[in-house]
């Protein structure tokens, strides 16, 4: 009976894990990079050399006010993000249908900082939770999350007897399959708390998409497009109301928000709202203080009380980790990498176990080429995305779109290469060149960075060292895997 249960769970773990694992690796890899999305954006905008913790002055806030008013006159719906420890500039942003774009201002003087157009780290962030497919993508990501939790649950059932005794067991000298299995189990068990927490909280962020609070029968009713009633349509005022000085409002907001820093300001036709910073604590709230326009008198403070709301806020806070200090952010990054490695090793194990029996089948070869596309093709395209940022001219029109086109183009090429090798039944030949490409692009990243932007590397050494170092680490891992593969082939 117990063996039957283990066998059934093994089937569920293997197939559920493999089918969603291909997408899960992409979600985890980009999510891990999103831990440092702001820093990646700074790396990708080397012109922005405003030092961290530069003081915010009234002059700069007035300049931002003028700019916002000017843009509102032109009909743009803008908002303002305030400087923080991670992003030292004042950003006047609007949504262009794909991403938030706008002007960066120096917090000391209020002068615009001319930066290149780039998707920046937000590209990884939006890829992580939408797969660049909007709401449909988010729904897919949520379903992948639930199935991953199922795979983890079945994995625990399979391994339950040896879960604690074998928690630190790794046999590098054992047979190849045993070694991979040990590595999968080791990383899987040790990072289990992090993995479950990050998947559960991640699905909870957009849980309404898979568990809507409507009766199930309503799901089958075709949704009618929403029409705005004629009585609700109000003509926007021709000239927006002028903004009051922001510095005193920020001081009032800080007092009303129990000393929490302000994160961003939203502007409505007749009032403005100052929101608490996400970095002010593990509770990711949308608490805000409203001020009347144009005189700026206090309208009130909005907070979300109650234990359940606080639980939800802490779940969101744990996933986004915007409250985390640099050390904790690195721990998130390392844990994310290990969780990615756990899923990746699971994919490899699934293929290794079936190679002798089903290696000749077309389904197996498709599976293996998709695995190669995910495990090596995605890092290649991420590195190509970073290279593109340095190689494309800074003043080029539409360079942000070009970066994304390059990312997707390289990934498609990697897929084509893996598929070609799969059709010729020489899979080892597919791993090799793509691993070499990772080594080349990753190893060359620091050199390219120093050659292209020496001043930025000198002024912001920590950010550049971290991102270039990650490229180098990818190169070292790729080379060692390639050497191992060659060793196995001999």
């Amino acid at each position, binding site marked *: 009976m117990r063996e039957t249960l283990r066998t059934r769970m093994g089937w569920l773990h293997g197939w559920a894990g493999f089918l969603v694992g291909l997408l899960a690796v992409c979600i985890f890899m980009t999510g891990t990079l999103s831990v440092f999305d702001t820093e990646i954006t700074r790396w990708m905008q080397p012109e922005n050399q405003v030092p961290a913790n530069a003081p915010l002055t009234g002059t700069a806030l007035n300049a931002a006010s003028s700019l916002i008013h000017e843009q509102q006159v032109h009909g743009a719906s803008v908002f303002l993000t305030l400087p923080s420890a991670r992003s030292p500039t004042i950003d006047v942003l609007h949504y262009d249908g794909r991403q938030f774009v706008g002007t960066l201002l120096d917090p000391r003087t209020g002068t615009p900082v001319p930066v290149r157009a780039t998707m920046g780290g937000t590209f990884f962030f939006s890829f992580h939770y939408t797969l660049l497919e909007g709401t449909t993508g988010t729904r897919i990501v949520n379903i992948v999350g639930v199935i991953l939790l199922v795979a983890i649950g079945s994995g625990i059932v399979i391994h339950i007897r040896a879960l604690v*005794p*074998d*928690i*630190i*067991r*790794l*046999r*590098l*000298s054992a047979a190849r399959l045993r070694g991979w299995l040990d590595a999968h189990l*080791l*990383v899987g068990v*040790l*990072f289990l*708390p*992090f993995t479950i*927490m990050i998947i559960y909280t991640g699905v909870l962020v957009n849980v309404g998409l898979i568990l809507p609070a409507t009766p199930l029968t309503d799901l089958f009713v075709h949704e009618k497009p929403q029409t705005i009633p004629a009585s609700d349509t109000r003509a926007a005022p021709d000239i927006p109301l002028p903004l009051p000085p922001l510095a005193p409002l920020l001081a009032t907001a800080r007092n009303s928000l129990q000393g929490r820093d302000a994160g961003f300001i939203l502007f409505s036709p007749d009032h403005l709202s100052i929101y608490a910073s996400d970095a002010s604590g*593990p509770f990711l709230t949308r608490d805000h203080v409203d001020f009347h326009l144009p005189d700026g008198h206090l309208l009130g403070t909005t907070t979300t009380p109650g234990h359940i709301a606080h639980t939800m806020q*802490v779940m969101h806070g*744990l996933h986004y980790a915007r*409250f*985390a*200090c640099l*050390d*904790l952010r690195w*721990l*998130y990054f*390392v*844990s994310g990498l*290990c969780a990615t490695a756990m899923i990746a090793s699971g994919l490899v194990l699934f293929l290794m176990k079936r190679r002798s029996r089903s290696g000749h089948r077309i389904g197996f070869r498709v599976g293996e080429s998709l695995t190669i596309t995910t495990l090596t093709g995605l890092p290649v395209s991420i590195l190509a995305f970073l290279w593109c940022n340095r190689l494309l001219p800074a003043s080029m029109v539409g360079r942000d779109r070009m970066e994304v086109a390059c990312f997707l183009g390289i990934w498609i090429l990697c897929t084509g290469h893996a598929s070609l090798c799969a059709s010729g039944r020489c899979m080892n030949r597919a791993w090799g060149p793509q691993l070499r490409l990772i080594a080349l692009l990753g190893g060359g990243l620091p050199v390219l960075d120093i050659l292209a932007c020496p001043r930025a590397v000198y002024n912001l050494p920590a950010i550049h060292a971290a991102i270039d170092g990650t490229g180098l680490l990818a190169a070292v891992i790729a080379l060692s895997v390639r050497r191992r593969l060659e060793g196995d082939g001999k």
Partner: protein
Amino acid sequence: MIFFATFLLWLLAFSCHARLHPYRYGFTMLAIREQRMAITGRIAFPTIALALATRMDGVTGVLIWFASLSIAGLCIALWLASRRK
């Protein structure tokens, strides 16, 4: 700072764990008294680490405690594997 303290305590806990499973991890059998000490250590070190982490950092402390568990476990597993290679 808290990370290093909890990391060290988890290393000690995993060392006790490895000594309690001598055949799995290639150690000699412990005497009864040493076994009792190892069992106590395996429970006490993580508890001290958790108390330390939560007292100093609240929610962040709990996250650090779990992260140090994972990373300490990984380090000791790599050391044990290289020792037996």
